């Protein structure tokens, strides 16, 4: 039941919203993986980021698209938790330190083993819209455990203008999506983080982005 609901929600609400109300200018679409397992890593400005990234994939891959999202935020209320896990299909991630001893990335490992496509925002929060914050290193742990899985960096711009943190009114803007070349596992977490950071920063310079102050 929820699977059908999820399929229809993306077909009838999300796709028209992202493709007509907002609109996408994408560069290097061919670099997106058309099968899992894969990890899409993007900067984070808005709730719309997840929906825009999911729209880049054909509807038949919807089942395997899994955005990773903060458990403390999305599981805080019952209705929101149902919507986030059943309709959007998130993998909840605890942002607190793992005091219980369990691996907080367990859900992500399982999904990748199943061949899913993970969508991760390593900034950890939407933060100040259209500003790039430092990446958290959880992504490096994930990449280390799955060195064969392609990691694709993506730079997003514009959605932070359309629906920034703390705003409820959506104002249409085209969003730019620049897809980077897949990153190979370099052998060490620190090198990986440097490569990822460099990749997203260099993607950000590919387009001419208008000022927004």
């Amino acid at each position, binding site marked *: 039941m929820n699977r059908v609901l999820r399929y229809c929600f993306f077909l009838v609400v999300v796709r028209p919203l992202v493709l007509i109300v907002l*609109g996408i*200018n*994408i560069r290097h679409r061919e670099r997106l993986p058309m099968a899992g397992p894969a990890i899409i890593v993007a900067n984070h400005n808005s709730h719309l980021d997840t929906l825009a990234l999911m729209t880049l994939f054909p509807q038949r891959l919807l089942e395997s698209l899994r955005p990773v999202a903060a458990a403390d935020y999305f599981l805080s209320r019952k209705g929101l938790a149902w919507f986030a896990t059943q309709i959007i299909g998130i993998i909840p991630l605890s942002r607190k330190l793992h005091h219980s001893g369990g691996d907080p990335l367990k859900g992500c490992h399982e999904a990748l083993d199943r061949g899913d496509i993970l969508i991760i925002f390593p900034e950890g929060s939407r933060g100040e819209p259209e500003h790039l914050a430092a990446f958290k290193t959880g992504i490096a742990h994930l990449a280390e455990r799955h060195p064969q899985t392609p990691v694709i960096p993506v730079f997003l711009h*514009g959605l932070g*203008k359309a629906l*920034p943190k703390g*705003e409820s*009114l959506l*104002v*249409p*803007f*085209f969003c730019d999506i620049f897809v980077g070349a897949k990153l190979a596992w370099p052998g060490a977490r620190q090198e990986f983080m440097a490569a990822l950071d460099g990749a997203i920063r260099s993607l950000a310079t590919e387009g*001419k982005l*208008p*000022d*927004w*102050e």
Partner: protein
Amino acid sequence: MILITLAPAVLWTLASIFGVLVIASLAVAWLARRKPGGHGELVLRVKSWWLMVSLFSLALVFSRGAALALFGLISFLALKEYLSLIPTRRADRRVLFWAYLAIPVQFLWVFMEWYGMFIIFVPVYMFLGLAFRMVVGGVTQGFLRAAGMLHWGLMVTLFSLSHVAYLLALPAEGNPPAGGPGLLLFLVVATEANDVFQYLWGRGLGRHRVMPSVSPNKTWEGLIGGVSTTILLAALLSVWLTPFSWPHALAAGLIIGLGGFCGDVTISAVKRDLGVKDSGSLLPGHGGILDRVDSLAFTAPLFFHFTYYFYY
């Protein structure tokens, strides 16, 4: 189906456009076969033409409401493209929302055939209202620049383009052969054909640049050849689609030819100022929607008022 209410001349013209598209597709396929890989952009461009012509014909044939909805959508896409390209202020987010709301309202005036409101709503009420709404936001730094840029965009993408739609609201008596739809088709076909003619003449014979600092591909040969061909086409089409006398038909062709050129180079200047090559990527082979309707934004009000003055 309201198909029957369209004059036969309008339907024949639509059919002829599809005929031209078939010929263009065959020609491009032949070119692509002779020199493989060299005409990718041209192939995409013709494909996008198929999509645009099909949508346009369907809306026109279906009903007046559908045609207005399509033009409203085009204004929305063009305004969105413009607002995404220009620098905007964070404080103006909600002001931009009001600017978007002006689109359905303006097309409502067209639907109601309320000419007086249609002609002043954007240049008077939105001009004053949006500026004041920006002041309510309380941020004065960059106010004049933001208010000016927003109004310029709204004038081009909404006010000017909605003149195309208002042709449908004109009383049928003014144009016995084909009514409002005939005038609309005349304007759109002549404007788009003029773009193509200027491009082809420029590609074939272009030597002397008109405005090298704005649009290096525009040449005197392209301009003169294009405008002359557009005048010929206008004279031909006017017989079936318009109430124009011969001198008026030639004048309409001249207005559309020159107006189209002006619109094209003006939007080129905007893009150059903003540092982009295309306004977007919505129409493969053409660029964005602004790249396609740039000339129409200038020809529509010019042609509309020419016709309105002499025939309504």
